[in-house]
């Protein structure tokens, strides 16, 4: 009897210990989360759209205007002394909220990495999914490189192979582990690798310029080469962009149409904006209550920039306006009544109080920039004739009655090209980075400077590289702060 009972209880035990072996592995069966969320190629494509949705050039545009010499206060609202006068530190809330790249750009990186983590194994459920899969992967690689390049521009110093770039996130940081910054040489190699991996499977046409294509990849490669001073590469990639069918340089006649979205000339990649999104134009002035009550003008063009345009320059009219309503109101409260930035307002439809006021698409990459990159690359390679040709081609298409110039020295070429960059690419998010890249100071003229302290940021000052924000310093034990902060 003893044995029987012992055996009975033992059998119960065995039964239980085997039947409950899966008790530790119960999954959350009813939740769309984790890997299930990106199960099919179609799901992965929605996630890639989530990545594109986070791409945004707002902070770059405003930063380059405010930190450099493109704008001055319009005297109506000014609370930007920390940034406009370079008094920022890692704890600045204003810096964190308005000029941080670390959160939004790594968000794009993360969205891209999530796509990449699933794209190869996602189920193909529709005809064409296996072709689409390659394209999605290529686009995600592009987005990853694109966002990392932005991160470098914000937080990196002037390029040097040994200088610290940022952590290069080529995996989903699921475990939320701390990440260290890596040297720029390694960082740039990873960016270049991503783009070259992407290129073969990106669409080689401009059918959908809301998403990346081969031309965009060329443009990004040209930028990367420019920043890392790989002049031959910069020239080659810029040339690829310039030679892309459909991306010819806009003429004097078609140029204004770029800015009121009448055409998409020069653009391989744009950021569509609707009234549901923040309006680009509000970076410089608030939308208006009515035609007679223009919104607060936070920034207006600096005298230095405005005065650099010739009267016959088509850009002067496309980028600025002297508005009669404002003149009558004696606004903005500055030395040039009525003069405001109009680059991101769909003129003439976007009048004060109109539904389209301040609402235009973002131009992420333009042919004109590629001409300027190539000109600079050629000049740096002592091909002054080539630089001269590019510069003159651009100016001929911007200034009525332009007389071509001759570049006789490399320094002259560089100076002319930088001046042209400041004029052509004003308010497009380049100026402050260009000054950093070239080791030049921010030099405002007295009429534009908000204060004596806010006149000059010396060349190569540590503030050209933004501080890593405090919350990141606390949350990421391995990240290194930039020198000086």
């Amino acid at each position, binding site marked *: *009897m*003893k044995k029987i009972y*012992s055996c009975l*209880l*033992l059998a*119960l*035990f065995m039964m*239980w*210990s085997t*039947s409950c072996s899966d*008790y*530790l*592995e*119960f*999954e*959350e*069966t*009813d*939740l*769309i*989360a*984790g890997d299930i*969320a*990106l199960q099919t190629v179609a*799901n992965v*494509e*929605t*996630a890639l759209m*989530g990545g*594109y*949705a*986070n791409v945004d050039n707002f902070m770059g545009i405003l930063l380059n205007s405010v930190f450099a010499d493109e704008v001055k206060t319009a005297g109506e609202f000014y609370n930007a002394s920390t940034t406009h006068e370079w008094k920022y530190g890692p704890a600045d809330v204003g810096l964190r909220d308005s000029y941080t790249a*670390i*959160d939004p750009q*790594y*968000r794009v*990186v*993360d*969205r891209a990495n*999530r796509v990449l983590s699933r794209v190869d194994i996602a189920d193909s459920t529709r005809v064409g999914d296996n072709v689409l899969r390659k394209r999605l992967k290529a686009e995600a690689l592009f987005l990853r490189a694109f966002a990392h390049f932005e991160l470098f521009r914000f937080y990196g110093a002037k390029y040097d192979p040994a200088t610290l770039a940022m*952590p290069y996130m080529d995996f989903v*940081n*699921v*475990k*939320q582990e701390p*990440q260290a910054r890596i040297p720029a040489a390694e960082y740039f190699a990873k960016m270049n690798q991503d783009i070259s991996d992407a290129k073969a499977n990106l669409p080689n046409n401009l059918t959908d310029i*809301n*998403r990346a294509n081969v031309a965009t990849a060329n443009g990004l490669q040209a930028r990367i080469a420019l920043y890392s001073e790989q002049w031959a590469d910069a020239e080659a990639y810029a040339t690829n962009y310039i030679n892309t069918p459909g991306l010819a340089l806009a003429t004097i006649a078609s140029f204004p149409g770029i800015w009121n979205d009448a055409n998409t000339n020069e653009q391989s990649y*744009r*950021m*569509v*904006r*609707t009234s*549901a999104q923040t309006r680009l134009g509000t970076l410089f002035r608030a939308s208006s209550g009515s035609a007679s009550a223009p919104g607060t003008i936070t920034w207006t063009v600096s005298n230095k920039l405005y005065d650099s345009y010739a009267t016959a320059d088509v850009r002067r009219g496309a980028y600025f306006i002297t508005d009669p309503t404002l003149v009558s109101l004696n606004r903005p409260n500055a030395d040039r009544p009525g003069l405001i930035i109009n680059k991101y307002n769909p003129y003439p439809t976007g009048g004060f109080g109109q539904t389209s006021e301040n609402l235009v698409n973002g131009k992420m990459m333009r042919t004109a920039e590629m001409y300027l990159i190539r000109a600079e690359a050629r000049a740096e390679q002592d091909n002054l004739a080539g630089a001269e040709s590019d510069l003159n081609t651009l100016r001929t298409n911007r200034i009525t009655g332009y007389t071509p110039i001759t570049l006789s020295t490399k320094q002259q070429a560089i100076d002319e090209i930088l001046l042209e960059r400041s004029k052509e690419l004003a308010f497009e998010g380049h100026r402050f980075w260009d000054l950093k890249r070239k080791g030049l100071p921010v030099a405002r003229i007295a009429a534009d400077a908000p204060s004596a302290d806010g006149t000059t940021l010396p060349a190569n000052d540590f503030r050209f590289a933004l501080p890593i924000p405090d*919350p*990141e310093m*606390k*949350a*990421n034990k391995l*990240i290194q702060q930039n020198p000086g902060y």
Partner: protein
Amino acid sequence: MRKILLLTVVMLSGYSYGLAQDRTVSGRVTSTEDGTPLPGVNVVLKGTTNGTATDADGRYSLTYQGQGETLIFSFIGLQTQEVLIGDRSVIDVTLALDVTQLTEVVVTETGYTRDKRYTGAATTISGNVLARTPVASLDQSLQGRVAGVLVNSGSGQPGSNATVRIRGVSSITGAGVQPLYVVDGVPVLGGLSGINSNDILSQTILKDAQAAALYGARGANGVIVITTRKGKSGVNSIDFRTQYGISVEPKFMNIDMMNTEQALAYEETVGSMLGATSISGPGWQLSPNHPSYSPANAATRDAQLADFRDNTRDYSDDLLRKGRTISNELVARGGTETSQYYVSFNAFNQEGFAAGSDFNRYTGRVNVDQRLADKFMMNVSSTVVNTVTNYNANEGLNSTLNPFQAIWRAKPYEQVYKGDGTLDFGASSALAPKVIANNIERQQATTYREKGIRVFGALGLSYEIISGLSVKNNFGVDMYTNELMYSVDPNTYSGSLQTHNSGIHQESMFSSSQIVNTTSLSYNKIFNDKHEIDGGVYFEALKVNNNGFAYTLYNLDKRLEETGQGASELPISSLGAGATTYPQNSTGAKSQYGIVSYFATAKYNYDNKYTANVNVRQDGTSRILNEDNKEIFTWSAGLMWNAINEGFMSSQDIVSDLKLRLTYGEVPNIGSIATSNYAVGRYNVPNYLGPQLPSYSFPTSSNGLPRFPGSSISPLSPTSPGNPNLKIETVKKFNVGFDVSLWNRLSVIMDVYQNVTVDLFVSQRLSATTGFGATNLNINAGQMTNKGVELTLNGDVYKKGDFLVQANWNHAINTNNIDDLGQVDEYVSGTFIIKEGMPYGSHYTYDYVKADPATGYPTYRQNNGELIVTNTVAGVDQKATFGTFLPKHTGGFSVNASWKGISLSTLFSYQFDVTRYNNTYNWITAGYPGYINAVNQSTELLTNQWMQPGDEKYFSGPNATRQFTSQDVMDAKFMRWRELTLAYTLPKIKGFKEIRVYARGQNLKIWSPWKGLDPEDNNNISLHEYPNPKMFVFGLDLSF
């Protein structure tokens, strides 16, 4: 199981004293249950320290001096027996089991005794103390009974469970997690309202680390172990118990609402101050002083105003009632040597004092203990419960349709009934207020009913392989299904207000089941009469399944009530312009988790003086996603010195008991792991792993996620990174205590503890490199400490002849401190602040001082001490100096007096050093048009509100905005007269074993500075909750 336990615990004992000898008495002690010998039973000569213990065969021999002595036979878990020796030299006794839990705590009739060998902190309450309580949920009756156990009822709705917190809150994410309840060795799923309190033999509260040894990570918030009654061999009896009572509402404390005359006058005063349209009520709009009053409309207005003046009802008569409680119960119990049974059936029906609320419960219990063969035992404990709960239609809602809001909010001059006696409901406006009538109409039109069925069963099998070595299997099932129906009659005014204007019928179902199986091998041995060892190894597996679904129907057929049958299709127009999809009106979800545990216990006792024990436990659970953290290790150890048994103590007779206890353990808290929910109608199905998994969402217009206008494909955005690193919080619990008894009459139990929670989940910012740079996540990064002292005094205050007065007082002090918050020093969480150096639950608000005499605007005190006058709170500092909603001091005291068959017992409970937000007070002292027009105001405003420049008053003027400030953080201390019972056991009548009659009052009175209905609640804010009722019951118990 019982037998195993018996053997387990029995092996622990054994004294031997060698004193001078004159006479010898010897005998054998056996179990009443199965006749087996009981080793280790203490045999002591009454009034002396002379004693011994039985050997492995249950035999003892004691030498003593003197005559007419009495022997006391006692052992943990067994009923103590006293036997007069007389001239006998051989005395055999049988001892009955008293409690069958692994907790090893002695239960006595009056309550609060502690085990002789348990090293930890635990308190047991005898079932007799809890019996006959006219409250459905047993946990409520714990208030004021046990030191360190905070019990607060959040609702007076009959059948609702109380919130129980043992030794404070030890987690931020798991702040609301309840203790683990274990019934007959099986952990149960949820609250106790399904258990008939008369079926309970004892209830033991385990407070320290020792609890975790047996119950693991689910026991971190304390364990409440419940043992149900068993049959006894040879004693067959039938008991019939009946109870009848009424519940009535508590009265407003310290608040005087304006009556009709005052409200009308106040409206006029404020209206004339702020202008023609400021006040919309009749007191101003119909006033002769109103600018639009003219000879043309004077007569009409005067008549209207006079009508309002005539309305002076007491709305509590309209909204509330006297609730009836009826309970009837039949119990049969008894048995033979090999088989014992306990069978009970109880019908409990209780009406709440709010119209429409009641609770009806039918419970049946069958407990059987059967000896299947020699040394092979089977124990069955089973219950079936059927409940039907009717809720007030708007219980707990922030709405005038909630009677506990309407009752103070409605203007006192409402006309509730028309001249013909019918309800005057319909659209309500300032000059035709219908708050009360609409409330009543909604209640009449609505059915809000929950039906529940619960089955609970435990089956234990045990077999003694060889002497001292036993194998045991315990299998338990707990499953319940609840259905909640919310239905508004389509053929009523309320029905016409629903979507599609013809009622609503919603049914929600939730079912949950848990199965648990524990297999164990235990061993016990005594060496050389002095060394006792006791140990066990256990394997346990537990699985919980949840399932729920719900549907909602509109556009109901007006001919039918409480059904979806006949409901019409929904009109296309309801989809909205341009809509191309139909919404789903039904949903469902399921979830499950499992725990697999291995644990071992070991205990050593030397000569009944020194005890040491250690417990280790390993739990693996599917609740944690991270493979490295899935396995949870728990351990605890304890030491006890039973000083009374030392030789040097034997020469005195003042101290009759003296023990020192010490325990330490590291207990993980599974309740700290955040879960989420699938909303399924009016229920939530738990989603255990959601917060640990990366989750995604498509942006909708309102959730703020980025949309992508560049494509027709919706952008899927990750909304949460999940927490793959999640590991469980661990509470390091230290407890030291002592038990002293003096003259066998007064006992003192004191415990001091410190519980340090490490790996505390705190809200932290993530690194941007995760893709969630601006997101906060609860991460294991903080630390929290609870420290406290608990004191319990029990005494026979007066003892003479048949007259006995016993008193008990318990008091506990708990202080909480947040030691570390990782990256940050503080963050705001709801209405309170989580801040290093402050206790959990610290209220965080503006420091209001008074009305500014010049402007009537609020004056606030800034952190630097300066006063600031402002009508907004922008720029005003918030402070955390207003206390917390978790009381620092809790306690209770009880007195029991008995004389022959008459007994009188009473219990008071109290809490202090506690503050809570009083939302009601904020509304009724708002004193500015927005509130005056919608809410009746307190008479405090008549004397203490700023009305004109120069007034030195507390409340800001009608021209100012009354914010939510320190004015509304109120002292919520209270002392409650919980209970008063007068009982009489009749002299023996032929045919009856016992007849007992009693009268009992519950919640008789409350003393508190609180302003409102009830200072007691289970959270930080008072928001028109259903207050706890006053109850009076009468009962009759018959035993045949």
